[in-house]
């Protein structure tokens, strides 16, 4: 969940535009396979979706979804969300919301930090349920060539690391690499607001020593972790989740190569951050209780 394209100079589109309009060159889908080329497994995802994710979505977080029709029914789109909590359940819940509530359910690709690819166990599980490393080339391929839905958290690690007392205050949105990615792929940006994740796993502090020992990118102190061991990491409090999809921002109407205009990229990035922040405050203000 890091900002896209911030530190990388290479162009994500291979060899410019000559291959962009050649869908016939994309590898065909082999029906006999249970995995796709990214390593996503229908079997593993389907099983988790019917059990664990279903339980959390329906009975534990009792997700309430608004504006799901703002997610396009076809073509690529980049979903942009705020991020909260130690082990953020929000990405999985947004994916589940689209599968459950959308008129045309579609799979959602969740960009994750490169760290997951290098951590034993997680590196096997994360790609199987639709996690893909947040490399600009990966995002471009998914959006432009495969016309998929991709979810990014522009706050990156800063969002997950922030403490409970800073809850619902959006962190800096990187350098707007995600906006440039959407512009380059000519796909709309869909802002998404999530409320409830901050209370589901409040982070009271973090331990630098244990970070180094466990080789985790950060080691949070939560009501259940590390006191109850690794399982404490999956113990979410039953806060009620509210997910609101906002009106999409069309990048196709911004002219030729809007991604080259750094000012425009920054302006769009700030605009999205402001819209999400405003709606998050609105949603927090509306709810009568964290739990109901």
């Amino acid at each position, binding site marked *: 969940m890091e900002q896209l394209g911030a530190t990388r100079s290479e162009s994500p589109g291979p060899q410019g535009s000559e291959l962009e309009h050649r869908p016939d060159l994309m590898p065909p889908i082999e029906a006999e396979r249970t995995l796709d*080329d*990214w390593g996503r497994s229908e079997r593993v995802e389907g099983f988790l979706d019917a059990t664990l994710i279903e339980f959390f979505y329906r009975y534990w977080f009792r997700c309430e979804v608004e504006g799901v029709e703002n997610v396009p029914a076809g073509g690529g789109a980049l979903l942009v969300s705020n991020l909260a909590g130690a082990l953020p359940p929000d990405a999985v819940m947004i994916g589940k919301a689209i599968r459950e509530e959308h008129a045309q359910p579609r799979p959602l690709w969740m960009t994750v930090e490169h760290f997951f690819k290098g951590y034993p166990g997680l590196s096997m599980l994360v790609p199987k349920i639709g996690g893909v490393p947040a490399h600009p080339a990966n995002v471009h391929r998914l959006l432009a060539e495969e016309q998929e839905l991709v979810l990014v958290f522009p706050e990156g690690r800063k969002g997950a690391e922030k403490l409970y007392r800073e809850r619902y205050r959006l962190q800096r949105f990187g350098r707007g690499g995600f906006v440039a990615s959407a512009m380059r792929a000519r796909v709309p940006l869909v802002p998404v607001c999530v409320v409830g994740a901050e209370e589901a796993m409040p982070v009271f502090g973090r331990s630098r020593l244990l970070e180094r020992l466990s080789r985790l990118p950060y080691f949070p102190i939560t009501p259940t972790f590390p006191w109850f061991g690794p399982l404490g990491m999956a113990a979410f409090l039953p806060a009620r989740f509210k997910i609101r999809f906002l009106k999409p921002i069309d990048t196709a109407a911004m002219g030729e190569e809007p991604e080259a205009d750094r000012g425009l990229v920054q302006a769009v990035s700030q605009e999205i951050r402001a819209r999400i922040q405003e709606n998050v405050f609105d949603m927090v203000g509306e709810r009568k209780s964290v739990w109901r």
Partner: protein
Amino acid sequence: MSERSEFAQETSARAARERDVAARRVLVTGLSTYWGGRLAQALEGFDEIDAIVGVDSHDPTRELQRTEFVKVSNEHALIERIVEAARIDTVIDTRLVVDSTTTSAQRAHENNVIGTMNILAACSGPSSPVRKFVFKSSAHYYGCEQDDPGFFAESMRRPHPPRTKIERDIVDAEAAVADFAGKHQDVTVAVLRCANVLGPSVRTSHTRMFSLPAVPMLLGFDPRYQFVHEDDVVHALEQAAMGDLHGIYNVAADGVLALSEVISLLGKRPVPLLPPVGTGLIAVPLRRLGLRIPNEMLNQLRFGRGLDNRLFKATGFKYGYTSRETVMRLAAHQRLHPVLKGTESGYRYEREVEDFLKRSPLVERSDSSGSDAQREPFGI
């Protein structure tokens, strides 16, 4: 470095330019390696090719009909004389060592870096007849790292400097080729970066590992793997030799598989034998026990690698097999192998016999048409 990335990007612009690049007189370096032999056999079937000369420091390992073999090491003065004397217009360099278990690090470096520079020097003379240079490289050029893209395109560079000696050799050799391409604008230069090759006759560290009763994995990792069938690599080299490809191309079949998927297609069991921490330390005693896992493979077993193969497909190349089909062919071969064992006849190069067959007036020759049977090797 700027020259090199330009070289990667100018691919299509250059290919469009008119140039007389029809291969007529071909030099194959590394004739005695697997790829050199396979390619020479394939080229013998093309009537448009007048002459095929093969050089290597060892005797050929495959039976060849009309290829002239010259035993010479990578000495540029000698090769230059051969190139000039035989008016060679196309040089195909298949010598690159991409597996560190096949030879010592020093000899690999000697062959990969110094050898490539010598071959390039032999084609660089002011009156050199060489118009086309084809270089077989490897996807090890990209390495395997945590922050890699899911699919490497030809214009991308590896995010970190090479970690193993063999990867450094490949990067250095390609740098020499790119430098040559920059200095000799009139020479068509094609670099083919091949993914892991599998097939019934090629022997690599991966085919060895996949022939074990249980396939070792790194505990907690299920890397993405992309393969290419050995016949597709030969066809790709053929296309580069016969056509006017200019630039860098990934040669990799469609489809990226997870290692667990590969193992189940082979009908084998995975053993998470290698620990995620201290993998390099465990690999050493395992090598003693006979499980030779090269250093450059350890990172692949952890992070895997995918390649964007569209650029080469855009030139009109058709792969015979997908990654999945390649693995399934290997599985079929593995099941049939015990039945066929001992029926393949080995080939031994005898200079006098070859000379007699090629030059004696007593031998009836039916031009190149008789070599058709040789073109398609026995494959399963």
